[in-house]
């Protein structure tokens, strides 16, 4: 089936911004409070109330535009999108239509075939969210306007994606960027990152796009993939039967994994967009853009390259570490203090990640600071302790908050490496295991591990493995 048709996908993503206050008033944007407790005349749409633009929202939109290589418009307009719905208090949504703040951007994704692909970003615009309807049985529906006037960014892609996998790769990349920038908390369940997908098919040899269906408001990556895959099959069947796909809006049903028609083209709203006369044109100066550019953090792609070249770690490690900005920052601080890139990446991806997972803490609340962890890793490098003992010390640090050196001294974990202490222990082991000694000398060199284990047992793991090895090999071979 898929050999016959090419899939064409364009995505519209609504990103809820993390500003403290709403886009056109001073009300808080916190999630989960008492219904209608975060409202004022402006976000209630009371007669006489007027919107005033929150400058922080513009900062965030410019920042996102710069991160996705958009052109930032020196002059942009807010427009009214008119429609009636009980969760829309003014009877119109303030959005941007003509002249959005950002246009002509792009994003790089890695396809499953391992290739780099550029996805165009048509535009990014700012708008306000609507409220929420609460349906209770019997007493009817109620309106909670806490969310009304919450700032959103709508990011519209070009129809550049050719499979659901590419769509997911794009979404994950975009999600990573907005979270990296700190403009969005990235919480999919709470609706901070919502997606509409435009899906169409065309015969492989056809230039023009086919008729598209718009899949609405899907809030998990898994569902988006399911919805697109279902829609592709549905449309292919229609085309195979010689039918025509209708242009319509379709809802994804998470229970059945299918999509169903919500409204057709003939029922489509005429939103009667026009420039909002309550808001003056938004003028963005070069200085403003430059000021924002200075605050632009290092983005994942650049960070990964830097980790590889500067710290000499494998690309895989760099990708894992750079996936989340806080983890990358932790790693960066650790290497700057400690120096050994690979040792540090092993520890962050290993022990630190494990401990965080077990405790359910985010890396920003890690009880062992990068400087403290560096102190521990230095003791591995200078042979004060072994890697194995280091894990024990790390657990101690995690629980007590104390430094590595303190714990090593208090618990007497310093590695035993002087030969005066090791030789007698080895004498004791060789004497107690004559059979194994004989086997080793007969060529079963694998038994070295057995002797090391015995020595570790006797030293409670504190013996320096290198010194131990050296002495063991010398003694076993010398007397053979």
């Amino acid at each position: 089936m898929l050999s016959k048709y090419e899939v064409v996908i364009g995505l519209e993503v609504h990103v809820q911004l993390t500003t403290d206050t709403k886009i056109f008033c001073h009300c808080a944007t916190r999630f989960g409070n008492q219904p209608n407790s975060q409202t004022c005349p402006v976000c209630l749409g009371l007669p006489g109330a007027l919107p005033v633009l929150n400058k922080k929202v513009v900062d965030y939109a410019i920042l996102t535009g710069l991160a996705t290589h958009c052109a930032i418009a020196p002059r942009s307009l807010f427009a009214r999108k008119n429609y009636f719905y009980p969760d829309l208090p003014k009877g119109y949504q303030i959005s941007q239509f003509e002249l959005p703040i950002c246009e002509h951007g792009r994003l790089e994704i890695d396809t499953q075939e391992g290739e780099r692909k550029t996805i165009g970003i048509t535009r990014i615009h700012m708008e306000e969210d609507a409220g929420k309807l609460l349906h209770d049985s019997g007493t009817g529906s109620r309106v909670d306007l806490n969310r009304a006037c919450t700032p959103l960014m709508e990011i519209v892609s070009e129809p550049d994606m050719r499979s659901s996998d590419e769509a997911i790769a794009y979404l994950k990349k975009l999600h990573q960027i907005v979270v990296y920038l700190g403009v969005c908390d990235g919480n999919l369940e709470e609706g901070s990152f919502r997606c509409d997908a435009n899906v169409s098919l065309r015969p492989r040899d056809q230039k023009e796009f086919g008729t598209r269906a718009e899949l609405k408001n899907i809030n998990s990556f898994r569902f988006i993939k399911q919805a697109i895959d279902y829609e592709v099959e549905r449309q292919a069947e229609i085309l195979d039967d010689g039918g025509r796909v209708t242009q319509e809006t379709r809802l994804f049903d998470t229970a059945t994994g299918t999509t169903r028609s919500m409204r057709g083209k003939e029922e489509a709203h005429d939103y009667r967009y026009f420039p909002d006369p309550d808001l003056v044109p938004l003028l963005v100066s070069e200085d403003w853009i430059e000021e924002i550019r200075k605050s632009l953090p290092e983005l994942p792609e650049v960070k990964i390259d830097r980790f590889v070249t500067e710290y000499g770690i494998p690309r895989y490690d760099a990708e894992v570490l750079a996936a989340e900005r806080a983890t990358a920052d932790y790693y960066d601080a650790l290497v700057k203090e400690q120096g050994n890139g690979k040792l540090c990446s092993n520890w962050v991806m290993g022990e630190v990640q494990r401990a965080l997972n077990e405790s359910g803490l985010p890396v920003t609340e890690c009880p062992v600071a990068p400087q403290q962890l560096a102190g521990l890793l230095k003791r591995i490098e200078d042979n004060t302790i072994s890697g194995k003992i280091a894990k024990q010390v790390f657990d101690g640090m995690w629980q007590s908050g104390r430094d590595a050196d303190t714990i090593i001294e208090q618990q007497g974990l310093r590695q035993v490496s002087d030969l005066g202490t090791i030789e007698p222990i080895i004498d004791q082991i060789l004497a107690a295991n004559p059979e194994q000694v004989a086997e080793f000398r007969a060529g079963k060199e694998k038994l070295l591990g057995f002797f090391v284990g015995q020595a570790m047992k006797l030293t409670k793991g504190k013996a320096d493995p290198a010194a131990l090895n050296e002495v063991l090999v010398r003694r076993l071979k010398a007397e053979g």
Partner: protein
Amino acid sequence: MSLTDLTLHAMQKRLQDKELTSVELTRAFLDRIAAVDGRINAYLTVTGEQALTDAALADRRLAEGRGDALTGIPVALKDIFVTEGVRTTCASRILDNFIPPYDGTAVARLKAQGAVLLGKLNMDEFAMGSSNENSGFGPVRNPWNPDYVPGGSSGGSAACVAARMAAATLGTDTGGSIRQPAAHCGVVGLKPTYGRVSRYGVIAYASSLDQVGPLARDVEDCAMLLQAVAGHDPADATSVDLPVVDYRASLKDGVKGLRIGLPEEYFIEGLDPEVHKAVEQAIASLRALGAEFVQISLPHTDYALACYYLIATAEASSNLARYDGVRFGQRVDRGEGLIDMFMQSRAAGFGPEVKRRIMLGTYALSSGYYDAYYLKAQKVRTLIRQDFLAAFEKVDVLLTPVAPTPAFKLGEKTADPLQMYLSDIFTIPVNLAGTCAMSLPCGLSAEGLPIGLQLIGRPFDEATLLRAGYAFEQAGDWHQRPAPL
């Protein structure tokens, strides 16, 4: 002379000289309202008790020497101003039961000065109309002759001043809604430059045109009221951050050497001869005071009315979408679903003129018509503004009639909306240009109805406008003629 016949500035002097208390003054106005408003219907809500409480507070403030310009002065507001705890209807049945939880900026500024609010005034529903016959609560009658309309949409505000039921009032002007009723009622009305007074807390009709302004007994009173409410407001993105000058300081500087333009497009056939004559006499009077007159042209005047009825209605169709019966105001719910509830609430709540303008505006913004109507109207608007700016290169002030005729009879034009719209033909261009203008009484018709003179000023140059108006006014006595109520 009764207390209610005093001008605002005379009241202020007596209050500050302790010759009069605000409570006495407020009682006098409440008595006057009780005595005459049954014949006028200017007030939709009288807040008598609260007014007396506020008057007592004002008296204490004056006694302590902490009085401001308007402390203790009884004023009233067009019912388009949102007032905390006081019913605000915009003269619409759809807001019959609406009690706002907040004060708008202009109201808050009046309250901060210690002005006493007597109540809320009748108007055309949602400020749409030129005769006050479009009120959901009955028409206002002209204090000069109750068979005639007071003009609109701030008909209640103008009639209230003319009938001495408040020291002064605030109105709003979108296409002439302060100036035209001021002219028909023989009072002074000022529409400031767009952006001079905050619109926060003013129920929107057409956001890019609406502007708050005073209606008062004379020019000085207007200046005082404007002084109290003018100035930048961070809560209104379209309010302009320019300093507010002392409007009374230059009031008496005269008009010697002032260049006044006479736009040829405003002295046309169809202009009532009595109006024409009164305006000619005003020109002669100002010339005698030393003003110089220049013939000028505002070539795009002919397109102003059409342009206005596209832009204003387009904005209104969107501004009035919030009256849906969901959160406040009247709801009609037959239990037949959401869309039905929206439609029935709006069908029952809005009057015919409001519905007409919502339909017009919705059409003008519709997909496929937007470019031909709304966008083109915006381009015409720019040309009209350029006409005015070009004229102001040559002259300081423009002089025109306010309305083509004196007040007309109730019911005379209700059957023909287009005839009604023509009442605003000389005032609408000023709103489209965004500049300031005022209406001054300049004569009486043979039937004893007032005639208004319009002076139009440069953007944000209300001071010159007031100075010219004052010079004209003081040279005659039209502003002192009381309505024969």
